[in-house]
C-alpha cells in the first residue's frame, strides 16, 4: 500500500489524475462491451423473429409455383390438337417454376441438415469442368430468359488434364449453384456472367463474376445473416428465402473453404470461393503415427 499521508500535494494530485485516467479507460471498455451485448441482443431478437416468420415469409415462394403449375397444366390439358405448339411454351413455364422450387427446397433442406449437425463431408474425386458445365446447362433456361451470356474458364496450373478436385461433390455443387443463381438473379438483362476455376497445388479457386447491381457498403455486413434479404419489399423482383449465403458460409466451414466478395454498386459483384483439396484420407481419422507418449487414459 502506498502511504498517502507522507506524499506531497503534487504527488497526490498526480496520483489522482493517473487513477482517474485509469478509471476512464476501464469505463470505456465497459461501455464498449455493453454496446456489443446490446447489439448482439438486437441481432438475436431479429434473427429469432425472422425464424418465427420464416414459414409465412416463404409460403408465397412455395405456393406461387404450385398455383402456376396447376393453372398451366390445366391449360395444357385443354389445348386443341391444332394448337399443340403452344404447349412447348407452357412447358417451359412449368420448367422454370419447378426449377426454382427444386433449388429453394434443396437449400432449405441443406440448411436444416447443417443446423441439426447432421452434415458430414463425403469426399470423392470431382470432375470440376463437368460439374460446372452441367450446372450452366441446368441454369440455361434462367440465363436465356434474361439474355445473359454465361462463360466458363478453366485453368489447371498443375497439369494439362481435365480439372479434377477431391472434395464433397454434392456440397460443391450446392455452393456453385447458389453462386450462379445469385449472379443470374442480380444481373441486368443482356449482361455477362463469368465463372472461372483455377486449380493450383492444393487449392481450387472459383470466381463468379456478374455485371449486376452490386452490394452497397452498408449491406456488406449483413449479407451472411440467415433469412435476411436485402430487398424484401412486396414489390421485390428477387425471389428467395435469404438462406443462400449463410448456407454457403456454413458449407465452407465444413469443407475448409473461404468465401469472399468484391463489389461495386451498379457495376457488379465477384464472389470468390477458395477450397482446400481434401487429403487422400477420406475417413478423416488421423493415423496413430503422430500420437506422443503412447499413453491412453480411460475416462
Amino acid at each position: 500500500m502506498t502511504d498517502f499521508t507522507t506524499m506531497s500535494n503534487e504527488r497526490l494530485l498526480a496520483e489522482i489524475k493517473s487513477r482517474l485516467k485509469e478509471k476512464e479507460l476501464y469505463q470505456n471498455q465497459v461501455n464498449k462491451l455493453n454496446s456489443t451485448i446490446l447489439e448482439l441482443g438486437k441481432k438475436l431478437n431479429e434473427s429469432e423473429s425472422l425464424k418465427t416468420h420464416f414459414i409465412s415469409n416463404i409460403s408465397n415462394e412455395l405456393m406461387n409455383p404450385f398455383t402456376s403449375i396447376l393453372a398451366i397444366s390445366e391449360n395444357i390439358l385443354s389445348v386443341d390438337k391444332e394448337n399443340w405448339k403452344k404447349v412447348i411454351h407452357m412447358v417451359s413455364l412449368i420448367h422454370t417454376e419447378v426449377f426454382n422450387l427444386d433449388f429453394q427446397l434443396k437449400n432449405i433442406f441443406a440448411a436444416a441438415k447443417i443446423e441439426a449437425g447432421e452434415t458430414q463431408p463425403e469426399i470423392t474425386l470431382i470432375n470440376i469442368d463437368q460439374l460446372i458445365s452441367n450446372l450452366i446447362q441446368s441454369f440455361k433456361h434462367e440465363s436465356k430468359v434474361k439474355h445473359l451470356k454465361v462463360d466458363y474458364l478453366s485453368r489447371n496450373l498443375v497439369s494439362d488434364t481435365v480439372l479434377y478436385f477431391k472434395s464433397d461433390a454434392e456440397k460443391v455443387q450446392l455452393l456453385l449453384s447458389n453462386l450462379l443463381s445469385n449472379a443470374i438473379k442480380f444481373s441486368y438483362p443482356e449482361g455477362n456472367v463469368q465463372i472461372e476455376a483455377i486449380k493450383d497445388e492444393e487449392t481450387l479457386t472459383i470466381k463468379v463474376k456478374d455485371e449486376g447491381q452490386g452490394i452497397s457498403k452498408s449491406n456488406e455486413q449483413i449479407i451472411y445473416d440467415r433469412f435476411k434479404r436485402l430487398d424484401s419489399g412486396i414489390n421485390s423482383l428477387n425471389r428467395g428465402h435469404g438462406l443462400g449465403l449463410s448456407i454457403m458460409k456454413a458449407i465452407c466451414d465444413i469443407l475448409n473453404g473461404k468465401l469472399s466478395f468484391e463489389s461495386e454498386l451498379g457495376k457488379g459483384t465477384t464472389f470468390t470461393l477458395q477450397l482446400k483439396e481434401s487429403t487422400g484420407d477420406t475417413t478423416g481419422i488421423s493415423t496413430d503415427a503422430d500420437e506422443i507418449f503412447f499413453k491412453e487414459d480411460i475416462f
Partner: protein
Amino acid sequence: MIKQVDIEQDTYFLYPAALVVKEQPMKIHTILGSCIAVCLYDKVKKAGGMNHFMLPYWNGTGLATPKYGNIAIERLLDGMLRIGCKQENLVAKVFGGSAVLNVQSNAFSIGDRNSEAALDLLGEYKIPIIAKSIGGTLGRKIIYDTYTSEVIHRIIKN
C-alpha cells in the same frame, strides 16, 4: 424381435460442427484441438451422443449450427431426449479446449473460452460432469463408447 448388435463394427467419425446421437451402441471417434467435445450418457438407457464445437457462442451471424457451443449442447440434449433419455439420468464428460494456437499472453485462448462455455452450459442444464480433460497445449484424440460410457483418451501432437 431381439437383434444382435455388433458393437465393434459401429464406429463413427465425428467432424467438427457436427453431432451424433443414436439409440444403438457405437464408438465415436474425434480429434480435438481448441474444440470441445461433450459426451452425454444416459446411465439407465445406456445410450449416448457427442458433439464437437469450435466456438463458444453463436453471435447471430449465419446459420445457427452446432459449430457453436450453446447451439451444440442444446441440440445434443434435444437429441438425447428424442431417443427417450431422461434429463435426470444424464451425465457428461468434457474433452478438448487446449491452446493449440499461439495467442497473446493475457487474452483468454479460444480453448479456454470453449471449456468455460461447456462447463457453464452443462451447469445450467444441471447435468453432472463426471469426467473431464480440458486445457493444456496439445491436441486430443478420443474414442467414446456410447454403451459403456468409457472414453479412451490420447494426447496427440498437432
